[in-house]
Structures are given as structure tokens and as C-alpha cells.
């Protein structure tokens, strides 16, 4: 059983190659740009810094390629859509209407309630971009032989860090650096040294909370996608597990497994939309909290 989960995990994880059926593999190249050499310097106070050589090599992985595909897909969908909607035209066609509905939903039901009508439009591009990037990455997991980049903490972590940066940026833009740093602590009528110490401690807690919220953002998305796809892979691996037994058993397990796959795929389809929505919704709420201090 342990081996099965290892096998399933291998399928859900990032890889340096694409696996296709019947043993076909596409190995992804290593991009080698040589290395960046920084000469030794002598600085006052710090002293001597030895020369360093930073290798500029990048091993392309499956998730990187899939992210590029997602980027291209987004451009292929939304640039023509913007052209078709120009001047306030109504959307024509099912696909255009589908995306139009989602765009309007995120603007009217997510961004504006969370951030406020006047400020929301400034953060709308970021939220739209976030929602569709995550959604498309999630849906990539339902494409045969592809995978879900959002099932890796490196990907969701990067997205959470970007969201964190957006929140801090929004706060600083709205209140200035000092104002935002101060606004993290709720206003309290405390005087003297004790007040300063208490406020300082509260500030540390609030800031840590902000960081934790974004870490949770990353973990929630990753865990949902990873777990969902792991379950799919495990159920599929049952077929392989009984492959060396009687043919009739293998046949029965195969049919049951595929039926389970279909049911879980539907669930995954729902989860793909739900998690993209939750990530975007929480990012909007965090931005709103930075813009409107308590």
C-alpha cells in the first residue's frame, strides 16, 4: 500500500518530464545560462567578501510548462474578450458570456463588498488575474497527463507572497508607510511606557497574524488540490494493484475505479472553482482590511 501511495504521489507531484500512456516520456530540458560571477570586494566595517559564483541554470519542470500554458490560455481568452466587450457591448456567445458572468461576479460580489466600491476597481486587475490563474492551474489537473501546479506549495506559496505584497502595497498606498505600520494596531487609549510596550506586542501579534493568514492561504489551496488529485491517483492505482491477480478481479476493480474517478472528477471540478474563489475572496478581504483600517 505504501508503494501505491508513493506511486500516486509521484503522479501528483511536479516532475522533470511528462508521462504519457504506454511508456512515452518527454524529458524537459535544463536551461543553462552559465553562471554569474561576483568579484571579491572589501567593504569598510563589513570587511572582505569573497567572490561568489551563482550558477544560472534552470531545470524546466512539468508545472513550469503548465503555468506557461495557463499564461498563454489566459491571453488567448481575455485579450479577444476585452476586444469583444469594448465600448460596453454585451457578450455574444456562450464562452464570452461564461467569462463575462465570472468577471462581473468577482467585481460585484467579491471585490466591491470586500474593498469598497471606490477603491475596488484599482485592485480588480490583480484579483481577476489571481482568480483565473488559479482556476486554470486547478483545471489543468483535470486534463489527462497534465497536472495541477496549484498542488505544489512552491506555486501557491509564490501566489500567497504576491498577495501579501499586494496587501502591504495597498495599505502603504492608502495610508503611507508610517500610517500603515501604525494602522496594524487598533487604536487604544493607553498612556505611558506600558502603553508603548503593549502596542508593540500587539503590533508583533497583528503582523504575525497577517503573515500566518497568507501562509494559510497558500497551504489551503495546495492541500485541496494535492489531496484531491492524490485521491484520484490512489483510486486509479487500485487497478495497477490488482493487475497481477485474476483477470476477472482486475476487470471488476477497473470498472469500479473508473466509476469512482468520474464521480470524484466532478467533485474536483467543483473544488477547482471553489478554491480559486476562496483564494481570491480572502485576498480581496485582506486588501480591504489594509485599505480600511479598523
Amino acid at each position: 500500500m505504501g508503494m501505491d501511495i508513493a506511486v500516486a504521489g509521484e503522479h501528483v507531484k511536479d516532475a522533470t518530464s511528462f508521462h504519457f500512456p504506454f511508456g512515452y516520456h518527454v524529458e524537459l530540458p535544463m536551461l543553462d545560462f552559465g553562471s554569474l560571477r561576483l568579484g571579491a570586494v572589501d567593504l569598510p566595517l563589513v570587511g572582505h567578501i569573497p567572490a561568489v559564483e551563482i550558477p544560472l541554470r534552470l531545470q524546466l519542470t512539468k508545472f513550469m510548462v503548465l503555468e506557461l500554458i495557463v499564461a498563454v490560455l489566459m491571453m488567448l481568452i481575455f485579450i479577444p474578450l476585452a476586444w469583444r466587450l469594448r465600448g460596453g457591448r454585451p457578450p455574444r456567445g456562450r464562452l464570452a458570456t461564461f467569462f463575462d458572468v465570472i468577471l462581473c461576479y468577482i467585481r460585484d460580489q467579491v471585490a466591491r463588498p470586500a474593498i469598497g466600491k471606490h477603491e475596488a476597481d484599482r485592485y480588480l486587475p490583480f484579483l481577476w488575474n489571481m482568480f483565473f490563474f488559479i482556476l486554470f492551474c486547478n483545471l489543468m489537473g483535470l486534463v489527462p497527463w497534465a497536472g495541477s501546479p496549484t498542488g505544489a506549495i512552491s506555486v501557491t506559496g509564490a501566489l500567497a507572497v504576491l498577495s501579501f505584497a499586494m496587501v502591504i502595497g495597498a495599505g502603504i498606498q492608502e495610508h503611507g508607510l508610517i500610517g500603515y505600520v501604525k494602522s496594524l494596531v487598533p487604536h487604544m487609549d493607553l498612556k505611558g511606557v506600558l502603553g508603548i510596550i503593549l502596542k508593540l506586542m500587539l503590533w508583533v501579534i497583528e503582523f504575525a497574524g497577517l503573515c500566518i493568514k497568507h501562509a494559510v492561504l497558500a497551504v489551503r489551496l495546495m492541500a485541496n488540490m494535492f489531496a484531491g488529485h492524490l485521491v484520484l491517483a490512489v483510486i486509479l492505482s487500485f487497478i495497477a494493484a490488482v493487475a497481477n491477480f485474476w483477470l476477472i478481479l482486475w476487470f471488476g476493480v477497473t470498472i469500479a475505479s473508473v466509476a469512482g474517478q468520474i464521480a470524484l472528477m466532478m467533485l474536483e471540478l467543483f473544488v477547482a472553482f471553489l478554491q480559486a474563489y476562496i483564494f481570491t475572496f480572502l485576498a480581496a478581504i485582506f486588501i480591504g482590511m489594509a485599505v480600511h483600517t479598523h
Partner: protein
Amino acid sequence: MVEQMRKWAALAMIALVLGLGTKSVSVAWGAEAGGGHGEESSVAQAVNPLDFRQDLALWTAVVFVGVLVVLRVFAWKPIARALDQREDHIRREIEDAERANAEAKRLLSEYQAKLGQAENEIRAMIEKAKQDAQQVGQSLIDKARQEAEEEYRRKLAEIDRATERALQELAQRGAALAVDLAGKLVAARLDPTAHARMIEQAMEAISRQHPPGLN
């Protein structure tokens, strides 16, 4: 029935192909995973989702920001603008429609009032025309009656006059005849038959000159 069986057969075939595919792949994975590691460590390595890779994270950030920068200019901002324009357009349309509706209602009530007024006027006109007609008819009838009465009186008077004249003439003629007759009677030898015949002739002569019913 045949359709159903065909469906199930197709499903079974798909399951079979998927099963074969997984079987061959899993063999390859098994070979990979088995090399050099114990089972537990390979499980931990394969399944650990918190395996953070900086290059993938950096790649993700770069791709995301790249997409954001490109789409911000070519999609997100134009779309946001288009949505606002659409909203404005719809709001304007609704306002126009409301205004047109109010205008139409106003015109309708105005015309209804006018129509009611016109109806009243027409009713009054008809009433007046009826009255006039009645009056005119009555006066015509009165006039006709009056005229007829006058005519009747005139005729009556004429008849009276004619009768009077006739009586006068008769009296004159009678007198003349009487004189004449007397003369003749005196002149002739009178026997009773001749006497009677002469009176008869005289009467006939009178009636020939003035037939009864005239005048």
C-alpha cells in the same frame, strides 16, 4: 436496448484502456521509485507536499506577474472600462425608458381628458340638434296646420260668398223668369197641361244655366 449495451461496451473499453495505460506507467514508476531507497523514505519523498522549491516559486511569480502586466494593459483595464460603459449605457437606457413611459402616460391622460371632453361636446351637440330638429319640426307642423286652417277658412268664406252670389243670381233670375213666365202666361191661352209644361221648361232652363254642385 442495443443502444444501452453499446454504451456499456464503450465504457468497458475506456476502462480497459485506462487500466492498461496505468498498468504500464505504474510499472515504470515502480522501477523508478524502487531504486536505492527504502519503502518508507520513498513514500515520504514522493508524497511530501511541503517540498518547497525556489526555482518553481520564482518561476510562478514571474509568470504570474508577466501575465498580470500584459493582461492589465490589454484585457483587465479595457474589460473594467467596458463593464462600466455597459452599466452607464444600461442606466441611461432605463432612465430614457422611464422618461418615455412617464411622457406616454401624461399624453395618454391628456388625450383621455380631451376625448372625454369631446364626447361631452358631441353629446351636447347631438342633444341640441335633436332639440332643434324637434323645434323646427314642431314649427313646420304648426305652420302647416295654420296654413291648412287658413286655406280652409278662405275656402269656406269663398263658398259662402259664392252661395250668396248664387242665391242672389237665383233670386234675380227667378224674378226675371217669373216676370217672363207671367208675361207668357198672360199672352197664351192657358190650359192646365200647357201650364205645367211651361213651368217645367222654365225649371229646366234654370238648371241648365246653373248645374247643381258648382259654385
